[in-house]
């Protein structure tokens, strides 16, 4: 089965993070120790995001790996092997326009479609969530504007509905005008879980976060609120030796 988890924002790259979402991502993989690949392409592969990924997943039962398309000099395996050998591919936020342009020149778009069709779970937030849809609203050029995505999933997505409210009117106008297909508006901390083409579940790691469905009925946009299932992280502790190893590898945590 093909699976995509599209997050409106938040997650481990934001502070304070949403550990319940990280947990859900690993659960979806359906493997006791899933291999999870982080793609920080949309932000230009910054060390800070990579360190946060390791901090979020480094002491969970998984095999975390990072693919940095800006540092391929250090990469020995072919990209195809790296992508298709994963259980989960997690795409970070940033510039959606850059993300898609860079993926295209490296052939990542085709590899990710193959991975998805073979059952690799695709997850991502912000630009890394909108990219799977037919389109979204990007601030890649400054002001929010509609932009096409990869179109694995039908419909469109607009993210950060609570944190960046200037996206909302742009999104509603684009859907009404037909520039974007009908779709969803989601807050930070909210995830849309798709199995094949169907929206199976809407979850939230934050109590007041919301999602909405946006349709056009007789020429008018209709916004319908969706109540997400609130998910909470299981309590967990980080052992002293894991903390020490992480400090050695990635330095002490900083803001």
């Amino acid at each position, binding site marked *: 089965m093909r699976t995509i988890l599209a997050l409106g924002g938040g997650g481990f790259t934001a502070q304070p993070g949403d550990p319940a979402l990280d947990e859900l991502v690993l659960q979806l993989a359906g493997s006791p120790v899933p291999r999870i690949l982080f793609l920080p392409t949309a*932000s230009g592969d*910054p060390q800070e995001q990579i360190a946060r990924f390791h901090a979020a997943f480094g002491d969970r039962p998984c095999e975390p790996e990072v693919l940095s*398309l*800006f540092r*391929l*000099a250090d990469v020995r395996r072919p990209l195809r092997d790296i992508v298709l050998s994963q259980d989960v591919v997690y795409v970070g936020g940033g*510039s959606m326009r850059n993300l*898609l*342009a860079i993926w295209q020149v490296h052939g990542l778009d085709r590899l990710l479609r193959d991975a998805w069709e073979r059952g690799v779970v695709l997850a991502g937030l912000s630009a890394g969530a909108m990219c799977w849809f037919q389109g979204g609203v990007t601030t*890649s050029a400054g002001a929010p504007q509609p932009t096409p995505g990869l179109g694995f999933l039908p419909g469109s997505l607009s993210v950060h509905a609570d944190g960046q409210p200037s996206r909302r009117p742009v999104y509603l106008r684009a859907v009404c005008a037909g520039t974007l297909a009908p779709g969803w508006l989601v807050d930070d901390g909210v995830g849309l879980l798709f199995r094949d083409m169907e929206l199976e579940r809407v979850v939230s790691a934050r109590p007041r976060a919301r999602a909405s469905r946006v349709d056009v009925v007789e020429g008018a946009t209709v916004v319908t609120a969706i109540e997400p299932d609130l998910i909470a992280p299981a309590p967990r502790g980080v052992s002293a030796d894991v903390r020490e190893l992480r400090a050695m590898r990635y330095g002490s945590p900083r803001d």
Partner: protein
Amino acid sequence: MAFGGGGFSMDAGNPLLDDYVLRLTGVQRPKVCFVPTASGDADHYIVRFYRTFAALGCEPSHLSLFRRDRTAATGDPAEHLLAQDLVYVGGGSVVSLLGTWRAHGIDLALAEAWRRGVVLCGLSAGSLCWFAEAVTAFHGAPRRVEGLGLLPHSNCVHYDGEPARRQEYRRFVRDGMCAGYAADDGAALHFVGTELHRAVASRPGKRGWHVARRGERVVERRLATVDLGAPVALAA
């Protein structure tokens, strides 16, 4: 001005290539825009650019294509580029660089800036990008990549630093890649229009090369290279 390597990002403390390219602008206090796209707009790289160029008597700025929503500067990146005296392109992945530029129309803006006389320079990926064809060895074996084509030649960088690149470049030219120019780390190729004006170097022994096919053979010719560090011969 295509650097095989060197300048502030590879050869801190040796300002000869950066000084040379600043003088090419012919302006007392040149406006210099750093374009760090090939590194993914790496913060440490941008900071090093400002540290270096703020001390060199110019008006530095940078163009970030990953954080356009958060960059106070510029507005329209094309306008900003056209207003510069020098555009300085950093190193990194030339494939990612070209893909990102095309998505933002920066390829067209730079071609226009070049036609209007803005000096363009860069090292490594920032050199390869100006040519019709180039050799990238950023991931795995060296391979051919098409650049912006402002210069109708091929290009290879780090010519003395990475023997595999040199071998592959010669093989590509033998197999049909257009003739072109290579530069050692610390050497740079100065083009006026589409023709090579001169090769210069920031260190003795570093040079530029011309590589072309003659029949079935590849002929590699050392270019007379001006050592920018050599004391100028005094007139008798």
